[in-house]
């Protein structure tokens, strides 16, 4: 480039910057759509270096959890949770199929909304990540040592499991409460087959409390509480002084069952439901309430065999508000509140007003005083309603349009998403005054600050989970990834650092410092600890066993061959189970298994692990199989053949590797 060209480029570049600055100088926060001056430095993670935070984002309708590094926005991994994954066999293999069982049968898909870390003393401890399925009420537990789904618990007597699975300060309980009220069987309701128009009479809701075993994370539905048939939207356990309480927002206190966008938006106030879970749990354990019949599935990966099993459960304890006097209250909240968040100090509870122009901030201390004074304005289904003025510390004004969620930086500030006006609004928790705001692109739903929902936010970053992407990236047809925006919140002003696209439609995210979980990662499974009933630990133990019409192939995989790799004697009408054990003992050497004509899935088998897939051949012939994970220089050679003969043939079972079968 000549000197003149360089000058010209600088000149043209200068004009472009000036024009851009002019275009966006109207923005209230005086920041351009492009971002911040030294943003590139702040998000640059050099090759070979690691991000400082893990970010776990729900995928919404992907049914999964996506894992990203912050501040780079790099996509690290996707954890399959409620959705079958035919690429690695999750939900297809014999070891993982049972995770998908429900009382409705096998469900291959889910709608993940709210990832939630386990907590110790109100602080995220990074042991487990829980996430809900909004559609078929379920809660999954992801093991953060393996990034795998180890357990899925179905919840009976509920529908629309949205306000879930938020955790109490020491992960004693997870929340789940009904968003879509439904008619229920006796004795809870009047039967399930009723006219929809009889909503007000026959539809019911429950708040579920799922107990978590502190040692292994196993979940148990401990008890449910009958609540009025509103749409409960989001929930949070208290922290610090309020830690014995849990708070839920609701809309549709109108109890509408059709055209909710109008009919559930009539009343000026809906509610926050506050429950003293600690006391309720004590009462439940004393035997109060009623054990009712309910069928629901509990799917758990056996830690010894690594095989998922389903236990069908039949009973659940249900309590009524009348059993729980003084332990449940409604607090009025402006029109159809959405999000609800408890400040790190545990003193205040803030909702997203959604259809309101203010964010109401309730004081836990005021709530306790109002309860003591018994200052109520009536009751619904035996649950007293506290006075809005009595419990409200202040209303945050000028928060933009469509406030949905708040999160906290641990330095006395809250940050709210305003969906309709497309911005993040920073406000002072104590004074309720707005101190800063920044445009987002476009329409943020949730937001997430590392540890923002705990007693000790790590802060520094804020992630806006935008619902609309439009022109932010190269277009990919009508549908595109959701667009997240990373802000630096370490200073007084919000600074936009980075846009990055993410899978699915994240509804919420959780961040944690990398150091909390990266050191404990499982790199491979020890073969000697593999107790899968179909494990093959050594090549010499590989075998093919016929038992009637069932054939079990015990196969090993190691760079770069299968044992056996030639198999004959399979016949039409057989059900074949192929159990592949990866006998490598080295980090990041998975092997794949794919078989021509296999109708369910391929498999990825991690080192030291056994995975089994079922195959019912439909054609006579010789079918090649091969390794799908480029494992080594001779990966292409990692292949074999299975011969399928007619049902009436006399081909005997023979198998081997590196020899001609006889």
């Amino acid at each position, binding site marked *: 480039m000549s000197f003149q060209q360089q000058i010209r480029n600088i000149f043209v570049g200068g004009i472009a910057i000036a024009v851009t600055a002019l275009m966006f100088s109207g923005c209230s926060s005086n920041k351009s759509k492009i971002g911040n001056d030294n943003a590139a430095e702040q998000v640059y993670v050099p090759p070979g270096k690691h991000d400082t935070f893990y970010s776990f984002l729900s995928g919404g309708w992907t049914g999964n959890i996506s894992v990203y590094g912050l501040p780079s926005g790099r996509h690290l991994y996707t954890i399959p949770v409620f959705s079958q994954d035919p690429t690695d066999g999750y939900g297809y293999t014999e070891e993982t199929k049972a995770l998908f069982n429900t009382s409705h049968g096998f469900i291959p898909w889910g709608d993940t909304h709210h990832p939630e870390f386990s907590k110790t003393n109100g602080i995220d401890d990074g042991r487990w990540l829980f996430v809900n399925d909004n559609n078929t009420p379920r809660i999954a537990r992801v093991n953060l040592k393996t990034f795998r789904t180890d357990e899925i618990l179905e919840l009976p007597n509920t529908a629309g499991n949205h306000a879930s699975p938020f955790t109490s300060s020491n992960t004693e309980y997870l929340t789940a409460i009904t968003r879509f009220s439904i008619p229920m069987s006796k004795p809870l309701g009047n039967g399930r087959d009723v006219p929809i128009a009889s909503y007000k009479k026959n539809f019911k809701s429950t708040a579920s409390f799922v107990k978590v075993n502190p040692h292994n994370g196993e979940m148990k539905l401990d008890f449910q509480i009958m609540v009025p048939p509103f749409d409960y939207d989001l929930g949070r356990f208290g922290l610090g002084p309020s830690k014995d309480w849990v708070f839920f927002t609701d809309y549709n206190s109108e109890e509408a069952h059709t055209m909710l966008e109008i009919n559930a938006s009539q009343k000026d106030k809906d509610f926050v439901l506050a429950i003293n879970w600690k006391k309720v749990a004590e009462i439940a354990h004393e035997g109060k309430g009623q054990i009712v019949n309910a069928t629901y599935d509990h799917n758990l990966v056996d830690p010894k065999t690594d095989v998922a099993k389903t236990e069908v459960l039949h009973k659940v304890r249900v309590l009524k508000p009348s059993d729980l006097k003084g332990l449940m209250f409604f607090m009025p909240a402006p029109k159809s509140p959405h999000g609800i968040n408890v400040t790190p100090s545990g003193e205040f509870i803030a909702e997203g007003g959604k259809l309101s122009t203010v964010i109401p901030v309730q004081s836990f201390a005021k709530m306790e005083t109002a309860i003591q004074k018994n200052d109520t304005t009536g009751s619904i289904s035996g649950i007293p309603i506290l006075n809005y003025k009595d419990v409200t510390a202040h209303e945050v004004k000028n928060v933009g349009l469509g406030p949905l969620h708040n999160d906290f930086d641990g330095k006395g500030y809250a940050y709210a998403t305003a969906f309709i006006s497309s911005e993040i609004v920073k406000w002072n928790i104590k004074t309720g005054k707005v101190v800063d705001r920044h445009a987002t692109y476009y329409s943020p739903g949730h937001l997430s600050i590392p540890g923002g929902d705990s007693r000790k936010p790590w802060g520094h970053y804020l992630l806006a989970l935008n619902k609309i992407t439009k022109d932010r990236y190269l277009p990919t047809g009508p549908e595109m990834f959701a667009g997240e925006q990373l802000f630096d919140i370490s200073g007084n002003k919000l600074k936009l650092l980075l846009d990055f696209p993410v899978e699915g439609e994240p509804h919420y995210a959780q961040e944690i410092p990398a150091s909390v979980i990266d050191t404990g990662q499982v790199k491979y499974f020890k073969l000697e600890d593999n107790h899968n009933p179909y494990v093959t630990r050594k090549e010499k133990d590989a075998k093919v066993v016929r038992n009637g019409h069932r054939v079990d192939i015990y196969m090993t995989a*190691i*760079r770069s061959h299968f044992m056996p790799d030639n198999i004959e004697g399979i016949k039409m009408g057989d059900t074949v189970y192929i159990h592949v054990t990866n006998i*490598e*003992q*080295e980090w990041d050497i998975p092997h794949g298994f794919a078989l021509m004509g296999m109708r369910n899935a391929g498999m990825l088998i991690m080192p030291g692990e056994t995975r089994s897939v079922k195959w019912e051949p439909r054609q006579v012939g010789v079918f090649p199989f091969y390794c799908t994970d480029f494992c*080594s*220089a*001779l990966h292409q050679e990692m292949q074999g053949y299975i011969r399928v003969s007619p049902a009436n043939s006399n081909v005997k079972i023979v198998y081997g590797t590196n020899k001609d079968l006889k």
Partner: protein
Amino acid sequence: MTKKHRILITIASVMLLAVFVFPLWQIRLQAPQYPEGLGLNIWINNVQSLHPHNIQTINDLNHYIGMKAITPNVIPELKIMPYLIILLFVMGITTSLIGKRSLLMGWLMLFVGMAGAGLVDFYKWEYNYGHNLNPNAAIKIPGMSYQPPLLGTKQLLNIRATSIPYIGALAIGLALVIGGYVFYKEKYNSPKYRVVS
């Protein structure tokens, strides 16, 4: 033998037992895909992975070029060597107790012989391991052999192999130096020699 020399021989003999506590030799392998490194600790009676499962990984890698798998329980030297060390230890203690110079000389000769034989044997094992390749190996590079170095660093295809004596071998070496020193002092500084000279 002087009292001081007898104590030194006792110390040297006890030092030999270090081989039961520390490895003799360490071979470290580095390659682009193994930033964390691979390695072997060679003990008097075993070959162990430096990091968990390294032997299996090294065998996995080496089978492409036709090298034999390392299977510690079929290496005969690993069965014999502990007894030789114990023999040397017992003889050293006996020498220091009885204090005869002839015993000292015999002990030292055996020691030198065994140390030398050990190194030669180790070299031969490495030579055989690196040269005696499976003719059906997938990867054959004309003229290439994969003998790891006895001491120092050597580039073998993508792998940089470094071989160093470890605490066990260093203890043996030091015991040998002590033995040699005592022998030298006994031989040239004794009253008998002084009289003759």
